[in-house]
């Protein structure tokens, strides 16, 4: 599973042409994964940061992000097929997201 972490408001004030170029870069990257039969799934996550539930002293508190000070968001995820982390790393090395923030790669156990 590949989780791209982004800082909000990366794309303010961008021209249509610039936006298209970014979409095209992602398109190229995913297309290569599809052609190599590596891409299993991908989804945008709904807007907002969701909810985080915690209990403290038996009392449930609900916040909207993991750490109150954090402005980092996960906009979506991909699931790819790879032999091991090294291969997954290779497949993600040219992911366009790396220009905007870090990528987290986690293996899904039992798949």
């Amino acid at each position, binding site marked *: 599973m590949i989780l791209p972490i982004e800082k909000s408001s990366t794309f303010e004030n961008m*021209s249509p*042409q610039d936006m*298209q170029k970014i*979409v095209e870069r992602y*398109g190229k990257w995913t297309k290569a994964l599809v052609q190599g039969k590596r*891409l299993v*799934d991908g989804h945008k996550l709904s807007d907002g940061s969701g909810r985080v539930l915690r209990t403290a002293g038996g009392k449930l508190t609900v916040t909207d992000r993991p750490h109150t000070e954090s402005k980092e968001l996960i906009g*979506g995820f991909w699931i790819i097929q790879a032999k091991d982390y090294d291969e997954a790393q290779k497949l993600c090395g040219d992911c366009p997201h790396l220009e905007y923030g870090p990528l987290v790669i986690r293996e899904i156990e039992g798949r």
Partner: protein
Amino acid sequence: VIAAELTERLFRRSAGRLVAHLTRSLGTEHLGLAEDAVQDAMLRALQTWPFNGIPADPEAWLFRVARNRALDELRQLATRSRALNTLVGEPASPPQMGGAPFVDDQLTMMFLACHPALSEPMRVGLTLKVVAGFGVDEIAAAFLVPRGTIQQRLVRAKRVLRATVVPFAMPHEQDLPERLRDVLAVLYLAFNEGYAASAGDAPVRGELCIEAIHLGTVLAEHPVTNRPEVHALLALMILQASRLPARVDSLGALVLLDEQNRELWDRAAIARGFRHLEQASAGDCLTSYHLEAGIASCHAMAPSVADTDWSRILAYYDQLLEVDHSPVVRLNRAVAVAMVHGPEAGIRELAGLDRDPRLRRYHLLPAVRARLLERAGRAAEAARGYARAAKLARTTAERDLMERRLASLSA
């Protein structure tokens, strides 16, 4: 995940089409809202498509999202206005993108952006932003002005349109020739800015030429604006642009006409230019675009500078001078005079131009004179001219060219 591909410049062109289409429903007073909605839709595409894939019909997707954004925005404004009702009553899926209503909206938007209530810089800015889909930064880079200037100009332009209460409609038939003249003037200005590279070194400049030609084509293909003067301008722009591939060498330096590799000229574009030139000569309408396109066609046909029909070009310039008395036309005509009657004759033509305040800081005046002096064998004077032209040049490419000529003189 589907991996559909986007057609080239889809976002930019969709931006123009979608803003026009939404503005028709929302009314001119909500032009800004339409723009924001379309910008939001594109941002949303950026956040969605990398994960979910590019949809089979990207423009329809953008339209649906933009329309919903506009609806949300209107509801928030709580204006139980005509705009909200119109938009709610409209079909949620867009009309055929290339279809007639869509093109009509785009045409109407062109006339709106070039409305006589607006100043010329406002018209150019608004046309590039809302019709051609350029970003504020791109426009600022092309015209070498700060982004804030463009931003303000756009805000003021929209305010003027609101204050003037301009309906989103085509001009009346009796106003059409004049209003069309304004639209063509803006397209030509945008094209020239892109072509002449008179300021800035941004890569967006070639795109200005491409979009000016694209919008000219939209006009030429529409029954209402399919008129000789439109074809004349289109022919002119296409013929000029056919030389773009040869205008810059592999190192990015400017190459003058007489040194260009004519093999690099775009033959398909030249053929297309000639077809429009032919359509331009229907009827007895004769505009400066006709004459300039005529000149461009002489160059396009010629195998070399020496084999160019310069007397015909000079005849075109003579006619052009009658309708357009600008010093730039006189400057260009002097080159033709020199080609027909020799460099000294050309230099004499330039004599009166020195005192014209409009050319005082125009680097091409000393550049052209220097070239003619060089050909007349007056190297020392030519050197002074090139040095002055280099000093006045507005881009590094132009300056480099002048310095190269200066160096080749002393070599």
